[in-house]
């Protein structure tokens, strides 16, 4: 039985505001376990969601997510507050995912321009059918979108998730992944084109279904 329970996007926990974050960090530095518990409460779902989509293995994702919070707890004295706590946590999560990926010697699926579509199907303008409120994010659409995320290369996936799912800025992602801002935008464009190709095929069955994964 899965140890996860689905929480749909609209029910997501809002991130802590800057003042609350600073107050909690200050309390944590004085060994206030309850304050750290509040940080975990605020970010555990988001961190787990990111890690799960990165490592694509439930047990491993749960383990990595615990490790993220343990590492954060251990090195909170080194958190200088220049970035937000959320960005800092995602940086730890990203580094751990990269480490795991290297250890397992996974070969990520490489998404090239060809892999996103022969023609320009992936580059069309998404219409109203893409609006999640209109589509109501049915289970089928969620499954298709998740499959689209899963089948793109790791380097595209991380940019898509950090920007579109977690709301990090181009600069923050560039710093985290150690690539230029322009490359972040290029990868985001390709990642979204990949999504368009998959979800477009679901929304319009006459469209060619992607043939990978």
């Amino acid at each position: 039985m899965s140890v996860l329970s689905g929480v749909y996007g609209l029910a997501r926990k809002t991130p802590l505001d800057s003042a609350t974050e600073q107050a909690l960090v200050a309390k944590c530095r004085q060994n206030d376990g309850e304050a750290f518990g509040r940080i975990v409460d605020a970010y555990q779902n988001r961190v787990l969601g990111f890690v799960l989509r990165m490592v694509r293995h439930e047990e491993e994702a749960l383990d990595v997510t615990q490790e993220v919070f343990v590492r954060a707890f251990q090195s909170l004295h080194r958190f200088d507050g220049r970035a937000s706590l959320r960005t800092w946590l995602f940086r730890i999560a990203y580094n751990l995912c990269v480490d795991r990926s290297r250890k397992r010697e996974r070969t990520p699926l490489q998404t090239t321009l060809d892999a996103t579509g022969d023609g320009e199907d992936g580059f069309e303008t998404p219409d109203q059918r893409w609006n999640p409120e209109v589509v109501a994010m049915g289970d089928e659409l969620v499954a298709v979108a998740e499959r689209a995320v899963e089948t793109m290369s790791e380097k595209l996936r991380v940019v898509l998730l950090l920007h579109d799912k977690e709301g990090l800025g181009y600069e923050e992602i560039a710093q985290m992944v150690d690539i230029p801002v322009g490359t972040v935008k290029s990868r985001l464009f390709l990642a979204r084109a990949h999504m368009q190709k998959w979800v477009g095929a679901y929304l319009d069955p006459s469209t060619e279904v992607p043939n990978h994964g």
Partner: protein
Amino acid sequence: MDKSLLQKIAREEPLSAEESLRLDQALDVQEPVANLVAHLPEDAPSLAWRSELNQRLAHTKVKRRQFSLFRWGSGALAAAAAVTALVVVVSNTAPKPAAKGSVEEVILSAHRDEGVAVHVDWSDSLDEATLGSL
């Protein structure tokens, strides 16, 4: 978007200012995809997972304190050992006064006497030379 720009984006080549602008516009057009990704469901870990995390965190705290004590204890021990070693080395190499009547004592005494004699000779010769020049 034209094929050449798509190729440049796919190869992650640097873009000109005009191409960057077109990429920004293309990203704006893709906003509905971003919206879709933002609304993907989140997974909540179980209470058992959270309980396990709390245990790990509690253990981490204890471990950190133990490590700290160990670090201070071993540091103090190392410092004490270093001081002891230094005292032993210094006490073994410090010059000792020569024993009365020994060869060393005779040599030292002769050296001291010679030094005084040279000093006296120098004073005398200097006076003579000075007087001579006058």
